[in-house]
C-alpha cells in the first residue's frame, strides 16, 4: 500500500486571513480508526492475559473473519458510490450452494467449479446492478429484495439440508495453511520453532512495502509536492512493517500462513491500487462525491454503478466459496447477517453515509476491529447478546464520531 499523503501545513491560511497556524495536519478521521484498532487490541490483549495475540488465536481471527473482510472490500466501494448492498449474506449462501452442486453432485473439477461460481456471482451482481443503475430503483430496495430472492434460490438449490463434503482444495482454501516448503527454523528459547517459508514471505512483503513507499515519496519530491517530514515518514514505514513482521512470526510459530490470508492480502493490495490509481476507482469517488458534477464531467455514472454491483457479486462468490470450504458444507442458512458485519466494517472504517468518502484499508481495519471484539469477547466467555451489544455500540460511536467531526469542520469554516 502506498503512503497516504498527510498534508503538511505550510501556513495553510488564504492570503489576508489570520488563521490556520503552522501544524502537522493529521487526518484525524483516517488515523482515528488505526488508533481505535490499536486500543481494542491492547484492551483485549490485557483482558485475556495475552491470549488474544497468541499464535493460534491470531490465525483463528483471520480465518474466522476472512469472508467478512472480503465482503467489506466490495461493500466499501458501493458505499463510496453512495449505495448499499443488503443482499451479500444471501448471495454468499447462493453461490456456496451453487458451488456445492457442481462439485459434490456433479463431480466437476474444482477449478472449473470455482470459475463457474464466480461467474454465477457476477450474474447475480449484474441483475442487481441493472435495477439500481439503469432502472433507477434505490439500492436499498433492490438488495433488500435480493436478500429474499437469493435466500430463496439457495433453499431451492439445497432443499432444507446442507451439501458436502467439498474437495480437499476448497477446504484448504477456507481452512488450510501454506505448506512449509523450507522446513522450520529455531527462533531461540522463548519463541521456539517457526516456518521458514512464511517468514521469508513476510520479510519480502515488508521490504516490498518499504520500496513502494520510498518510491512514492521520491516521486512526490521530484514533482515538488508536499511530503511528510522524514521522522514521520520513517514512522509510517516502520510501524506497519513491524506489525506485519510480528503477525507473520506469530502465525509461522503456530503453523504457517493461512491461504485465506494470502488471498486477502492480494485483494487488499489490488483494490487499494484500483481505488487510488485507476480511472475506474476515481470515478467511484466522483459519483459518490457529486453525482451531477460527475455526470456533467462525462463520467458514465450508470455504468460505474452497474460494474460495482457486478464486482460485489464476484466478491460475494469468493466469500461464499471460502465459507463453504471452511465448514465443508453449503447450508441453507449460510451467510446469515454477513451483510450487517460488512456494512458495519465499512462505516467503522471511515466511509461516509452520504458517499464519496472511504478506503479499502479503512474497511479492512473496521472489519478487524469487529473481529477482535468478537474473538476477544468469546475468549473472555462472553455471551452472544453481550457481543452484539458491544458491536452495536461501536458502530454507533464510529458514525457519531464521523458526523461530529464533519460538523466541527463545517463550523470551523
Amino acid at each position, binding site marked *: 500500500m502506498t503512503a497516504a*499523503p498527510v*498534508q503538511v501545513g*505550510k*501556513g*495553510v491560511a*488564504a*492570503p489576508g486571513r489570520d488563521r490556520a497556524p503552522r501544524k502537522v495536519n493529521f487526518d484525524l478521521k483516517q488515523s482515528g480508526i488505526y488508533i481505535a484498532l490499536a486500543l481494542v487490541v491492547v484492551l483485549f490483549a490485557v483482558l485475556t492475559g495475552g491470549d488474544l495475540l497468541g499464535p493460534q488465536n491470531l490465525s483463528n481471527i483471520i480465518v474466522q473473519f476472512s469472508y467478512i473482510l472480503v465482503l467489506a472490500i466490495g461493500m466499501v466501494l458501493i458505499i463510496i458510490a453512495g449505495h448499499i448492498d443488503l443482499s451479500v449474506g444471501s448471495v454468499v449462501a447462493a453461490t456456496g450452494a451453487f458451488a456445492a452442486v457442481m462439485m459434490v453432485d456433479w463431480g466437476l473439477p474444482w477449478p472449473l467449479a470455482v470459475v463457474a461460481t464466480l461467474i454465477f456471482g457476477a450474474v447475480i451482481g449484474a441483475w442487481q446492478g441493472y435495477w439500481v443503475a439503469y432502472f433507477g430503483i434505490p439500492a436499498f430496495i433492490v438488495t433488500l429484495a435480493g436478500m429474499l430472492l437469493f435466500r430463496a434460490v439457495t433453499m431451492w438449490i439445497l432443499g432444507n439440508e446442507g451439501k458436502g463434503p467439498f474437495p480437499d482444495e476448497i477446504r484448504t482454501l477456507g481452512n488450510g495453511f501454506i505448506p512449509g516448503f523450507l522446513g522450520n527454523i529455531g527462533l531461540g528459547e522463548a519463541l521456539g520453532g517457526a516456518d521458514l517459508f512464511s517468514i521469508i514471505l513476510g520479510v519480502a512483503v515488508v521490504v516490498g512495502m518499504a520500496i513502494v513507499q520510498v518510491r512514492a515519496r521520491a*516521486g*512526490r519530491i*521530484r*514533482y515538488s*509536492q*508536499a511530503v511528510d517530514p522524514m521522522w514521520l515518514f520513517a514512522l509510517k514505514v516502520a510501524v506497519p512493517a513491524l506489525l506485519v513482521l510480528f503477525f507473520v512470526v506469530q502465525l509461522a510459530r503456530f503453523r504457517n500462513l493461512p491461504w485465506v490470508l494470502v488471498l486477502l492480502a492480494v485483494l487488499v493490495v489490488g483494490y487499494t491500487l484500483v481505488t*487510488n*490509481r*485507476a*480511472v*475506474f476507482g*476515481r*470515478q467511484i*469517488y*466522483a459519483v459518490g*462525491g*457529486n453525482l*451531477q*458534477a*460527475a*455526470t*456533467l*464531467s*462525462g*463520467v*458514465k455514472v450508470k455504468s460505474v454503478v452497474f460494474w460495482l454491483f457486478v464486482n460485489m457479486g464476484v466478491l460475494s462468490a469468493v466469500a461464499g466459496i471460502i465459507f463453504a470450504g471452511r465448514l465443508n458444507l453449503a447450508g441453507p442458512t449460510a451467510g446469515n447477517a454477513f451483510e450487517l458485519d460488512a456494512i458495519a466494517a465499512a462505516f467503522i472504517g471511515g466511509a461516509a453515509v452520504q458517499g*464519496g*468518502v472511504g478506503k479499502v484499508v479503512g474497511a479492512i481495519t473496521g472489519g478487524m476491529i469487529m473481529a477482535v471484539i468478537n474473538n476477544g469477547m468469546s475468549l473472555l466467555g462472553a455471551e452472544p447478546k453481550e457481543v452484539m451489544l458491544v458491536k452495536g455500540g461501536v458502530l454507533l460511536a464510529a458514525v457519531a464520531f464521523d458526523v461530529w467531526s464533519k460538523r466541527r469542520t463545517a463550523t470551523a*469554516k
Partner: protein
Amino acid sequence: MTDTILRMSGITKTFPGVKALQDVNLEVRRGEIHSICGENGAGKSTLMKVLSGVYPHGTYEGDIQYDGELCRFSGIRDSEHRGIVIIHQELALASNLSIAENIFLGNEQAKNGWIDWNRTNAAADALLRRVGLAESAVIPVVNLGVGKQQLVEIAKALSKEVRLLILDEPTAALNDEDSAHLLNLLRGLRDEGITCVIISHKLNEVMGISDRVTILRDGRTIWTDETANLTEEKIIASMVGRDMEHRYPEHTPKIGEEALRIVDWTVHSPTQPDRALVRKANLTLRRGEIVGLAGLMGAGRTELAMSVFGRSYGVNISGRLFKDGKEIQARNVREAIDHGIAYATEDRKRYGLNLIEDIKRNVSAAGLSKLARGGWVDGNEEFKVADEFRTSMNIKSPTVEAVVGKLSGGNQQKVVLSKWIFTDPDVLILDEPTRGIDVGAKYEIYTIINRLADEGKAVLVISSELPELLGICDRIYTLSAGRITGEVPRAEATQESLMTLMTKEVQEVAP
C-alpha cells in the same frame, strides 16, 4: 382618496458580503394590483421574503406597516395570520395529496383533532368554483397542469382569507391561455377587494393588469408610478439604467472560422414533455469570438446550453449541431467532450464540483483519460497539471491538495474553468461565470475568457448581467420564452435594446 394597506419603509437587508436591499420603500394601496419590476438580482424576491416573514423581523432594517400597524413577523405563519399570502415561482404543493388536502394543508378542517372530510371537500369545491377551476377537489394535484396548480395555490390563499396576495412570476411557466385566465382571475379578486402584488418580467402583462408599478434596481427603489403614465420603454430604461460600475479588460478579437452551429434546436421540459423550453433556436459560434446569450430567468438559456452539451437536460430534443462545418452527434456528455465542447455550469456547487475532494482531483475530473495509461492514472502528472493551473489561473491556495469546498466562490470558479480548459475544448459554454463572486475575481475571470478567445476557442457566455455581456462579448444573442429574438453586434447593442429584445413576445407561429 387613497387608502394605503402596506407601507414598507427604509428596508435594508444584508447577506454576508452583499447588500441585497438598500433603503427600499414600497407603498401599496388597498384594492390595487401593484407590479414590481426589475432585473434578475434586483432584490424583488428578497423584498417579498422580508414582507412575508421568511426573513423574520430583526434580520433586516426598516419598518413594515400593514393596515396602519407596525408589523414584526417572526415567520411566515405570522404574516399569513394577518392575511398576507405569498405564492412562490416554484409552486409548493404536495403533489400526491388531493386538491382539497393541499388547500387545507396546515389549516386542516378538523374537530377535536379529527379531520372532517365532508367539510374539507365541500369548502375546497367552493374555493375551486371561485377561482374557476372545474376539477373535483379529491383528485391528486399531480394530475393537474402547472396552470391549474397555480389556481390551486390561489384557492389555498383564499382559504386563508387573504387580503394581500403576492405572486412571484405567476405566469412564467404558463401558456398564453392559462396566463390570460390567471390575469382575469386576479382582476376579479381585485374587485372583491383583495390587493395583489405581482413580480413579473412580462412587461405586456404588467402594462395590461397593474394599476401601479414600482421599479427596483440593484436593491434600491427607483420609482413608483401609475401605469397610465408609463410605457414599456420607460420601464425598461429604468430597470437597466445603472452606471457601468465594473471595468472590463480591453480586448480586440481575432475572429476565425465557424466552430459550432446550432440549427433549429428545440428542447422540451422533462417534467412537462409537451412544453417547449427552447424553440427552433439558431446560433453560430466562431473561433476567437466571445458570444453572449442574454435572457431573463426562465427564458431557456441554461436549458439550451445543457441540451447542446450532450443532451444533459430536457427531452424530445430536436435540431442539428455542426462542429467545424460537419454535422455531429453529441448524445451524451462524453461525446460532447470528445467533440471539443465544454460547459461550465451556473451552479458550481451543485453541478460543477466535487466539494469534498481536492483541487487536483476536481481539475482532472473531466480529462482524466489524458492523465491515464491503460486505465491507470499518473498521480504525479496529475499534480503537475493541477499545479500549473493553480499558477496560471491564480487559484489562491497554497497547495492543489486543498479541499475545494473551502475555497472562495471566485477560486472555485477558477477550478471549474481549469477543469474544462484541461479537456482542451474548441467551444466553451460558460453559464453565469461570475455569479456570486467579488469584483476583483470577476476581472480575473474576464481576462481568462479573453485569453481563451485569443487561443482560438469559441466562447459562449450566458449572463443575467447586461453590462457584463456588453463589456466582454463581441456579439450577443437574446433569448425570450425559448426563442432567439435577436442577434446584435456589441457596437450596436445597448442595455435598453437588449432588454427590449429579451422581453419581446414572439407570437406562436403555426408549425
